């Protein structure tokens, strides 16, 4: 599928502390907040408002033409949870929704993160992922199934 237009969200702050944001779209492939086209729009907005832009968030999106598995064993409320370790022992938890039953071990609760597709996922995360400040992630030995459902009212 063709890439979607790039979404740009600019956040402004007024003199008395109120904030507002504006969202506009630019052609796909623009990913630099300092791009001349993005800055041209920001500068034009700054000229007609008593606020100033202090943050720009750019979202580059790639759609996939896929369909979910019909009658799956688990839906999005059930997630495969992996807790990666960062520097200083900080925990970085990732949850993949709608986990496949095939990745669970015999107890239907734990996931062997050292083999098969779970291991491939952990390798991808430790290779390309990081903490917010750039810290390296270390993969766990096990993952777990986590069910997120609303409790019944009594």
């Amino acid at each position: 599928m063709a890439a979607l237009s790039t979404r740009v969200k600019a956040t402004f702050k007024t003199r008395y502390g109120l904030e507002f944001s504006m969202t506009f779209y630019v052609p796909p492939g623009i990913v630099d907040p300092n791009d001349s086209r993005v800055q041209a729009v920001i500068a034009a907005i700054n000229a007609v408002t008593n606020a100033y832009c202090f943050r720009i968030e750019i979202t580059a999106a790639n759609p996939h033409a896929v369909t979910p598995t019909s009658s799956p064993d688990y839906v999005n409320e059930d997630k495969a949870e992996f807790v990666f370790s960062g520097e200083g022992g900080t925990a970085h938890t990732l949850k993949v929704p709608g986990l496949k039953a095939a990745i669970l071990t015999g107890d239907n609760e734990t996931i062997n993160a050292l083999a098969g597709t779970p291991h491939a996922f952990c390798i991808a995360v430790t290779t390309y992922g990081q903490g917010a400040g750039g810290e390296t992630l270390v993969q766990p030995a096990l993952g777990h199934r986590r069910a997120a459902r609303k409790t019944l009212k009594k």
Partner: protein
Amino acid sequence: MAFDLNPSNVLQLLFRDANGKHASMKMYIDSGETDPSAGGAAAISAAAAALSDSALYETQILIVAEDSSAGPATSGDYDRPSDKALFRFNTADGTIVHQQIGAPLNTVFSNAWDVDALDSGVAAYIAAMITNCTTQEGAALIAFDGGNRRRPPRRKQQ
């Protein structure tokens, strides 16, 4: 005005299950990863999709930058900071794009309520939008359709 990139970008994967419910997974990736269809984003997307019966229908990379020398906001005549100037643009695919600018200068309006397209700042903003922006689907903005002031209602006293 220069914006400084955050040290990490955010990778967001969007899933939809057979019941139509949506879920997402977020994590941080290197700031050099900017293409959601290639590199680390593609690798993590493929690996996550292999674990799930839900459909991974979109991969997003969020790039955040902040201006370390921004501000302060200028003072000037404007009625209320919560006021907005609403702009409407016509597009090549027939849709209407709306943009709202907060704390608008009084010079934006010709009679305190209607946007004055002849104002130099307004004209520059209109030109910047038409030249540089598109709709979400990629259609071009072709003309300014008009605009007006929007004022949120005051909270009623109980």
